[in-house]
């Protein structure tokens, strides 16, 4: 995983709440056995009128959001299925940061695993960013994970919080399994003392 330190990018708005993982990547694309190549299927049912024909009404299809790498959306983003294909699709599509007032738990864990930064902000801050990204051409945000702040070039600035251990892993781009394997002694120990049946 690449380290995540800071990121500057164009913001795309998806003004809906409860965007579920069935929408982010519909089931017919879960049959692949790779981790890559899911980007073209992201938001499939909203994005295409029929395979190959983009839906001009879907906001992410607008020319001005084509190079966006930060997605801002409503509450409970990523609800539903545990499919990690959802963050794989978003990452492959080009999103590195997702901002929302709240996220579903499993989806958020899956983001951490793939170096996507999911940022929880107050609803009014999210609304502000959403508004700016709609009204300003190529509206960009700077995300600074080390200092846990987010700001634009016109005076908006706010802070966010990530669990210290998770933040550290993202900054280092650390492989979580490799990290856990360094705790093998503790795991061995736990297993020895584990109630027999458990």
């Amino acid at each position, binding site marked *: 995983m690449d380290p995540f330190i800071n990121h500057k990018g164009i913001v795309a708005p998806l003004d809906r709440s409860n965007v*579920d993982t*069935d929408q982010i990547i519909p089931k017919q694309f879960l*049959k692949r*056995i790779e981790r890559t190549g899911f980007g073209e299927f992201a938001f499939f049912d909203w994005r295409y009128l029929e395979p190959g024909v983009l839906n001009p009404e879907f906001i992410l299809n607008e020319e001005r959001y084509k190079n966006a790498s930060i997605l801002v959306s409503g509450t409970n983003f990523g609800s539903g299925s545990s499919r990690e294909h959802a963050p794989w699709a978003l990452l492959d599509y080009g999103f590195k940061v997702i901002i929302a007032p709240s996220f579903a738990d499993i989806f958020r864990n899956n983001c951490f695993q793939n170096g996507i930064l999911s940022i929880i902000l107050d609803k009014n801050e999210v609304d502000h960013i959403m508004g700016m990204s709609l009204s300003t051409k190529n509206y960009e945000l700077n995300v600074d994970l080390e200092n846990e702040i987010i700001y634009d070039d016109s005076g908006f600035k706010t802070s966010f919080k990530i669990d210290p251990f998770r933040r550290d892993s993202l900054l280092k781009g650390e492989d979580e399994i490799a990290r856990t394997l360094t705790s093998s002694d503790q795991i061995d120990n736990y297993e020895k003392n584990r109630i027999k049946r*458990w």
Partner: protein
Amino acid sequence: MKKTLFEKIWNSHVVEQLDDDLALIYIDLHLVHEVTSPQAFESLRINSRKVRRPDLTVATIDHNVPTLDRFNIKDPISKQQIETLRKNCEDFNVPIYDIDNVNQGIVHVIGPELGLTQPGMTIVCGDSHTSTHGAFGALAFGIGTSEVEHVLATQTLLQKKPKTMSIEAVGNLPFGVTPKDLILSIIGKIGVDGGTGHAIEFRGDAFENMSMEGRMTVCNMTIEGGGRAGMVAPDEKTIEFVQGKKFTPKGKNFDQLLEIWKELKTDDGAKFDTEIKIDCSSLEPHVSWGTNPGQVVSVNSSIPDPNDFDTPEKKSNAESALEYMGLEAGQKISDVKIDRVFIGSCTNGRLEDLRAAAKIIDGKKVGKNVNAMVVPGSGIVKMLAEKEGLDKVFINSGFEWREAGCSMCLAMNPDKLSPQERCASTSNRNFEGRQGKDGRTHLVSPEMAAAAAIEGHFVDVRNWK
């Protein structure tokens, strides 16, 4: 210090504390299916890692299985995914219940059925409805594919300690009202993200008096209310269910477990981060009208007007849901005509559910314009149902009787809705496109689905003859 059931299980599984909230916890049982595991095994291979405890890992095939001719998988990609799991299980020594085995079935149905699911355990699976197993007083939750790999390689998982929530049912479920109605009404009340970040314990009369199947239905849908896990403290019913199952320890080992299980309850006076009370005494059968499981009404109500919602967000959600569902505000839900009926899934595909539905339809005929099907949750459920003759009851009424699998719960196999088709479904998600692109799903109990199949529209089963 007084502890909740969740805290007891969590504390006894911490291998290493990593920061204030984050811990490495030990996993007692890891269930695996074909959809969320291939990339995990592949990555183990690339990194020359082994499966640490194949003996605590069990695989089955459920999501892709055709329910008509299961040995003839026409979709080449489905076939490849199934074959990949077979090969992975063989290479890494993981036991698998394949489609030629009577113990095959939906992963959340076979876990309890085989006695793999036991009180006090930590149980994970690359599937959000893993919360089902919490019905046994286990801490069970869904994980993503990277976490599947983490558990395969280390038998542990890095997790943030969830907050605790108590949902206490006051009073009992009235006659004709089911656990499905109760959980739908709970999600309607707390919202689809009401439980986010929480492990929820269901307490009080209605849950205590509920069958194990009913508790599984409730815990299964905890995730639809955003809950990290749902659980019910183990009691006599739990023990009776678990005892004598294939993987349940026997004799002295079992007696030892009983001693431990006795401790598995929330201490009097223990505090939850959030406490909610639900009055059950006036609960009615529920039907979902929208595109998330919190958009529900009781069967005798009308579809709400988006303008009646208190936030602009809920209003716009309701508007887009009504548009997708092809419904009008103010329409009586009992006037809504249906095209399809699906009885099955890890929510309501167990023997008790099929019995309840069969009782409703016995001797009656499925409506002229309705296509109805029953998909048992597992090979065992199918076998037991056939032993009782339930298959005949369904077939005589005009239902299709299929083979075990996830089927039209998520339509990854050939069973799916056509655009605009409307379905009364006993599954757990009514998301846009869940049962087929532009298909319209109404979540209901097995009894309600059965009655709707006969009438061609929703009816209140309590006074329906």
